[in-house]
């Protein structure tokens, strides 16, 4: 019997459970995250284990949730709050951009605060339950932004985020919650934020990506390999801010061709920043123009037929890769 595998979702739950066990100052709140365990069940069982004083439901008030979490963080607690969907955080951007993000710079107070936000599409969620908004958060000074692709990273980075003294936007991919599993060790440590990981080596090109697209990129790279032996590196950024530019530069130096892939919109997407970094820093290393494969600048459509055309996937990545390799 192979060892039991753990989903991305369960890995997140384990991180929260360990945080609550080890850190009496930690607490979780958000809409329906208590007895119900959250819209996606990431917090299932935690109120039962830790009590309603540490894991509790709130009114439907994103600004109050984020503002209260910031206030708690200034008093030495470690709140980890959930936005039911990242889309709804748009009702309270000022609490992140203006309040949490500027706090340490202005006042010197730490704000150890994590905002967990389920992101992304692929399940007919429509325009308001499928967004990918990392580009917006990455633009905001004073925030860190994490976006894991694998269960092990999800677990280690969520604990790492919760132990960080800064406000951390922790993006979770809804599609990955139950679609990705891996064997996880019983002994594990929190991961510090800021390190990318080569999750497939290669010398012919590199795909810079994160979140759900890491898995699509791996599939596309595998297909290139099986079709004609091409070796495409996949770099999972894991943390978008701070960005591991050393790993990016090293990957470009090793491959000389770059494809950037993400599930968010193209114009001003995080891929633009990645392309800019590549263009600025590794211009002399490039054998082909950097290329972005992203969702188009279009609201996320509901119907699966439209969403399939909208969302990047292994096939579209493969197609773009072939062009990058053949340039």
């Amino acid at each position, binding site marked *: 019997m192979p060892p039991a595998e753990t989903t991305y979702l369960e890995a997140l739950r384990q991180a929260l459970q360990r945080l609550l066990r080890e850190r009496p100052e930690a607490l979780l709140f958000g*809409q*329906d995250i*208590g*007895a*119900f365990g959250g*819209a996606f069940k990431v917090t299932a069982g935690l109120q039962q284990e830790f009590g309603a004083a540490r894991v509790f*439901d*709130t*009114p*439907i*008030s*994103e*600004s109050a949730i984020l503002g209260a979490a910031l206030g708690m963080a200034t008093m030495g607690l470690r709140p980890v709050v959930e936005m039911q*969907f990242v*889309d*709804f955080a*748009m*009702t309270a951007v000022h609490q992140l951009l203006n309040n949490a993000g500027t706090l340490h710079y202005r006042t010197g107070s730490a704000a150890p605060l994590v905002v967990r936000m389920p992101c992304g599409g692929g*399940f*007919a*969620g*429509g*325009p*308001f*339950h499928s967004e990918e908004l990392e580009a917006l958060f990455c633009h905001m000074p004073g925030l860190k932004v994490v976006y894991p692709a694998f269960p092990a990273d999800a677990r280690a980075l969520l604990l790492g985020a919760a132990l960080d003294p800064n406000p951390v936007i922790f993006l979770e991919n809804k599609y990955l919650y139950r679609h990705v599993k891996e064997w996880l060790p019983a002994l594990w440590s929190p991961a510090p934020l800021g390190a990318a990981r080569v999750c497939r080596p290669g010398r012919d090109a590199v795909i810079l990506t994160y979140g759900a697209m890491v898995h699509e990129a791996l599939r596309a790279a595998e297909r290139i390999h099986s079709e004609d032996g091409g070796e495409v590196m996949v770099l999972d950024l894991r943390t978008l801010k701070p960005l591991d530019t050393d790993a990016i530069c090293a990957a470009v130096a090793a491959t000389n061709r770059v494809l950037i892939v993400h599930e968010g919109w193209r114009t001003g997407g995080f891929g633009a920043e990645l392309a800019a970094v590549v263009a600025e820093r590794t211009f002399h290393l490039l054998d082909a123009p950097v290329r972005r494969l992203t969702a*188009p*600048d*279009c*609201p996320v*459509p*509901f*119907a*699966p*037929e*439209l969403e*399939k*055309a*909208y969302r990047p996937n292994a096939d579209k990545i493969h197609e773009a890769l072939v062009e990058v390799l053949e340039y």
Partner: protein
Amino acid sequence: MKHGVQLTKDSALALLRTMLLARRIEERLIRLYHQGSIFGGVYCGCGQEAIGTATTAVAGPNDLFAPCIRDMTVHLGRGAQPLDIFRQFLGRATGPMRGRDGNIHYGNLQRGVYAMISHLGAMLPVVTGGVMARRRQGRDTIGFAFIGDGGTSTGDFHEAVNFAAVFDAPVIFVVENNQFAYSTPITHQFRCQHLVERAAGYGIQGVAADGNDVLALRDIVAGLVADIRPRPRPVLLVCETLRMRGHGEHDDASYVPAALRAAWEQRCPLLLLRQELIADGLATEAELEALDAAVQAEVSAACEQALGDPPPNPATLMEGIYAAG
């Protein structure tokens, strides 16, 4: 006569028909969902059918509606056909949103119905603005803006009601207090005894109503409409009800206490109206059975037709993001 608005057989049966249509359509959607024919979610208004029915029954053609999650009867009351609704939930190219948005997120401005966005509360200022616009254009428009008990905690609820009050916008803010917001009971949502207590803080009238008694509610709404159409100003109308299914069909609503559920089951708005019709001698059991059978047949036919309709063409993905100048 017990009711403020003249209760004729025809008008009473029309109310029942709207509610029955919604109930039967939802039953069919639930089956489709469990069969895997519907992608995304199905969110039902079962138990809350009276609210959209009563409001649309007394509204005029120029009025504007911003329905929320559980308001299929608003759509039906404003002229949506069962076929439109199946196409919508099935994401068909022929549906009102052409597959670009799904399930409850639809509308038709020709009929004065805004398509909701998910962000709770966000449509309340939109319909307020729509009403202000129509009033400037010389129409006697009234707005009906729907929101759940949970949605009253959003900043948008507050901003919109206050905004409407300041500008004397004739909007009836209809709170559907169905006791839960997803899994969260109203005890964790607010601390006032009753949400009508919010009205005074905006300097507007607050009215509490039974959300399940369609005839009584229709009378109340008719009274409010008669008040505010000539003398425009907003009103807060809080309807008590219970959501009789889960938040969506993925949710078994096991957090709803059985006794509470049972009590409201007795107060099913369809049941109450049937009983009243029969007691008042306005209809016979047999007539009501026949109505239901006709509704069922209509619903089945619409469902079959929608199932045969085409999905959107992926080549149209990028069309119409902007309006052409």
